[in-house]
C-alpha cells in the first residue's frame, strides 16, 4: 500500500513538471503545442541511451537529454514565428509525428518499437520512497521556477505575446526571442521530467510518446486551468488520479484505458463549454480569436 502511494507520487511529480512546462508556452505564451510528449520522450531516451546503454553518470545523461530537447524545442518553436493558433497546432502535430517516427524507426539508436529496457535505477531512486521524494521535490522546484518566471518581467512579456503580438512590438519588445526562449525552457523542463521517468520505470518505448499522449497532456493543462500555477498541478493530478480511481471502481483492465480517455474527452469538452478558464480559473482561450485570417 505504501509502495503504491509512493508510486503515485512519483508519477504525479513527473506529470506536474510536464504540465507546468507545457503551460509555460500554451497558457502563458498562448501557443498550444501538441508535440510535448515528443520532448518528454527526448529526455527519456537521453537517459535511456546515455545512462542506460552507454553508462554515463545519470546526471550527465539527464543533462544531455535536456540539451537535446532544448534544441528540439527550438524546432517546435520556430513555426510559431510564422503561424498562430490552430495553424501552429497543426505544425506541432507534424513535428510530433516526425519525432515519434524517429523513435519508432531508427532502431540502432532508439531500439525501435521495442524501445530500450534494463535502465539501471540510479542510487537516489533506489527505493520507491526515495523516488517519491526526488519527484515531489522536482515538481516543487519546477513549479516554483515557472511561478517565478511567469511573474518576472520576462513572463509578463510572454503573457503579452499571448494577448497581442503587435502590442508587444509597440511596447518595444521583439517577440521572436521571447517565444524561442519560452519554447526552449519548456522543452528542457519536459525533458527533465522524461529523464526521471525513464530512470524510474527502467525502460522506454515509443508508445509512451504518441500524439495521443501529447493531446492528453494538453487536455490536462486546459482542464486544470491554463496560465496559472495551480491549474497544471490539478491537471496532472487528474491525469494520474483518474486511472487509479477507475481501477478502484473495479473497471475491467481491458476497457480501463478507453474509459479513461473517454472521460478526458468529455471533461475537455465540458470545461471548454462551461468553465473556459479551467477548474482553477486561469486564462481562457475563448475571449479573443488567436488566428488572424
Amino acid at each position, binding site marked *: 500500500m505504501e509502495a503504491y502511494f509512493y508510486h503515485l507520487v512519483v508519477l504525479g511529480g513527473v506529470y506536474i513538471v510536464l504540465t507546468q512546462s507545457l503551460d509555460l508556452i500554451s497558457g502563458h505564451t498562448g501557443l498550444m503545442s501538441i508535440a510535448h510528449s515528443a520532448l518528454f520522450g527526448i529526455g527519456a531516451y537521453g537517459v535511456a541511451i546515455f545512462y542506460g546503454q552507454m553508462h554515463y553518470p545519470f546526471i550527465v545523461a539527464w543533462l544531455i537529454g535536456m540539451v537535446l530537447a532544448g534544441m528540439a524545442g527550438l524546432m517546435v518553436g520556430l513555426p510559431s514565428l*510564422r503561424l498562430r493558433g490552430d495553424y501552429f497546432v497543426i505544425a506541432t502535430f507534424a513535428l510530433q509525428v516526425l519525432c515519434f517516427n524517429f523513435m519508432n524507426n531508427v532502431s540502432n539508436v532508439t531500439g525501435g518499437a521495442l524501445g530500450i529496457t534494463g535502465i539501471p535505477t540510479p542510487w537516489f531512486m533506489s527505493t520507491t520512497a526515495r523516488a517519491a521524494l526526488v519527484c515531489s521535490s522536482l515538481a516543487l522546484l519546477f513549479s516554483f521556477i515557472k511561478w517565478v518566471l511567469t511573474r518576472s518581467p520576462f513572463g509578463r512579456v510572454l503573457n503579452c505575446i499571448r494577448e497581442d503580438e503587435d502590442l508587444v512590438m509597440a511596447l518595444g519588445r521583439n517577440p521572436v526571442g521571447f517565444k524561442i526562449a519560452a519554447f526552449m525552457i519548456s522543452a528542457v523542463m519536459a525533458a527533465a521530467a522524461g529523464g526521471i521517468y525513464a530512470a524510474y520505470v527502467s525502460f522506454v518505448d515509443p508508445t509512451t510518446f504518441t500524439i495521443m499522449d501529447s*493531446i492528453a497532456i494538453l487536455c490536462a493543462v486546459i482542464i486544470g486551468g491554463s496560465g496559472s500555477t495551480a491549474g497544471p498541478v490539478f491537471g496532472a493530478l487528474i491525469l494520474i488520479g483518474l486511472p487509479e480511481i477507475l481501477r478502484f471502481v473495479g473497471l475491467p483492465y481491458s476497457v480501463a484505458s478507453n*474509459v479513461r*480517455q473517454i472521460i478526458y*474527452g468529455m471533461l475537455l469538452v465540458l470545461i471548454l463549454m462551461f468553465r473556459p478558464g479551467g477548474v482553477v480559473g486561469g486564462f481562457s*482561450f*475563448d475571449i479573443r*480569436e488567436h488566428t488572424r485570417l
Partner: protein
Amino acid sequence: MLSQAVVNGLIAASTYLLVALGFSLIYTTSRFFHFAHGAVITLGAYLAYSINSQAGVPLLGAAVISVFFCGLLGVLMNHVVYNRLLRKGAGSLVLMLASFGIYLIFENVTTIIWGASTLGFSPGLPSSICKWHACITRIHILTLAIAAVSWVFLAILFARSRHGLLMRAVAESRELATAYGIKTHEIVDASFFIGSAFAGLAGILMAADVGMTPTMGLHALMMGVVVAIVGGIGSLRGLLLASLLVGLVRHLSIFVVGSQWQDSIVFALLLVVLLKSPWGFASDAAAQEV
C-alpha cells in the same frame, strides 16, 4: 513494381481526397479544424460493418445507411458542441480543442464496442485485375470512381447551384451572410452533413480494402489534413492536385526510403508548406489594418 506503386498512390490519393473534401467543406463554412472528422471516418466503417453482418442488410444498403448516419452524426456534433461553443464566443482554437475531445470520446467508444483488432467486411478480398505488372481490385476501382464523382459533385454544387452560392457567402463572412438574411445555420449544417457523409464513405471504402481498426480514422484524417493544407483549403482544384501529390509521394517514397518513413515524408511536406504558406501573406494583409 513502379506501376503498382503508382496505382497504390492513386488509390490512396482518392481516399485522401474524399477525406479532405469533407474536412475542408466543413472548414470553409465553419472556419475551424474539425478533428472529430476522423471519428466519423472510423464510425462509418464500423456502422456499415454492423448493419451488414449483424442486421443482415446487404453491404451496399448497409453502406448507404451508414453514410447517412455519418452525415447526421456530423450535424449532431455541430449542434451539441460547436454551436454552443460559438454562442459563447469561442474562437477557432477552442473549437479545434473541443473536436480533439470529441475525437477521443468516439475513438474509445468504438474500441469498447467493436474491439481493437482489425475487422473486415464478409466477402473478404475481392478479385483483382492485373495489367502491366500492377493489380487493382474492384474496391480500388470503386474508390477511384467515387472520389472522382464526389469531386465533380462538389465542383458543380459550388459553381452552379444556389446552395453552393450561399455556402460561399457563408464562407466569406458568417456575420455578413446572417445580416443579409441567409440562414447560416442551415448552410453550416448542410456542410457538416455532406462533409461527414464523405468521411463515412471514405471510411467504408478503406475498410473494404484493408479492414477497419478504431484508429484508422485518425491516420486517414491526418493525410486529409495534409492534403487540405497543401492544396489550400477551399480550392477544389488545389485539393485534387494535393491529394495526387500526397498519395504519390507517399507510395513512391518507398523506392527512396523504407516504408516506415512514408508518413514522415508526408508530414515533412506539410511542414514545408505550412512555413511557406499563403497564410504568411494573410498575416501581412492583417497587419495593414492596424
